[in-house]
């Protein structure tokens, strides 16, 4: 986690930064060092922020990296659809009220719920296929 992760507003902003940086790496088509990412972004992001975000994306297994000179060059780990899939599971998982925004088909069951469910549906149901 980054040093200022205790600040919720800041962390949310970082989530958007992650998406932005991923888009840059997608477009580039070749591995980029943090310095090159900063150039592509061309806005107020500092070098150290970019390094932090890149290494976090690497930890989340969204990026691969190869040593180049004294830095690492980063590239997206997969094609666009695969990356989107990982984003769904990984990046969205961070949202504090994600469960309220995503309407899940089924929530988890407690042990009592499971027993009740099996009772309701009857023993003859082939649920454990």
């Amino acid at each position: 986690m980054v040093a200022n992760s205790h600040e919720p507003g800041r962390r949310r902003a970082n989530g958007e930064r992650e998406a932005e940086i991923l888009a840059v790496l997608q477009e580039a088509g070749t591995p980029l060092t943090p310095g090159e990412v900063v150039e592509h972004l061309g806005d107020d992001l500092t070098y150290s922020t970019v390094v932090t975000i890149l290494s976090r994306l690497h930890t989340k297994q969204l990026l691969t990296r190869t040593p180049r000179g004294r830095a690492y060059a980063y590239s997206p780990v997969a094609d666009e659809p695969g990356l989107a899939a990982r984003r769904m599971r990984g990046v969205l998982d961070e949202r504090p009220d994600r469960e309220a925004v995503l309407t899940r088909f089924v929530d988890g069951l407690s042990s009592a719920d499971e027993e009740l469910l099996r009772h309701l549906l009857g023993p003859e149901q082939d649920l454990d296929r």
Partner: protein
Amino acid sequence: MHVAVYLPLLLSLLAAPGARILAERCEPRLATWLLTVSAVVLAAASTASLALLAVTGLIRIPPLAAIGHWSLQVVQRDDPAELSVAVVAGVLLAAAAFAAARMMGRRVRSLARAALDAACVPAPDGLMILDDPAPDAFALPGLPGRVVVSTGMLRVLDDGEQRILLAHERAHLDNHHYLFVALAQFGAAANPLLRPLAHAATYTVERWADERAAAITTGDRDRVARTVGKAALAVRRTPGRSPVLGMIGMIGRRSPLSGAGPVPRRVAALLAPPTGRRIAPALITAAVLLAAVVSTGHAALDLHFLLELAGA
């Protein structure tokens, strides 16, 4: 002002029993509307009451009274509320405004973020299949939204059940269920007494989507019940996903279902005959909301007269 100003706060106490009745005895679409509107109206009325009480405290502060040319003597003689009540009301008002603003700000960001993610997902027909063995399925709100289903979930369900699952998630998106939930939770953030209404709304949108899925597909409600059960048991068997028990807070222990989580209650509701269009819950809800609005209006009018009297 004496009684009327407190009435919306007292009526908020009806939220817990009212939410239970609406969630369980009312047709889910109507129930969702009633729960959401109740949360918003009662939150507005109770917040307005706190504001009115707080104002009666403010006008006793000499510099403020001087600005409005109000007579402190008249205010102190005719004002029904104790100063301590006004101070407490002011503190609660600030807390309510802060909590509601924070909740809404957060939710707007989350929805914007979800819409961004939905837009990034390459899914021309609105369906995205995650290559993931863990069974999972959800609707991602956006413009347009996306239905996301994992391969693990598809593997568990047969063709008909997959259609039911997709119909359920599309019903969430088509009927803007995330907005109902957000508004109900907004009301509950401003007035915590209304939390049961928001909890119930998250349940009734699921019921609404279940019934829509039954209506859109085969009309076989038993089949929908079995699909929900099958999916829930499949999720439960997958290690690594901790259960999310959002609905534990339902009060009452009258039947085995009363303490149960949302999935068994949804299944039980689908296996039972459909809830008819009952008019009584809607009428009672409307009466309660009307009482809250009228009493707030009455209290506001009283304060207006008090200020006129003090200013004369």
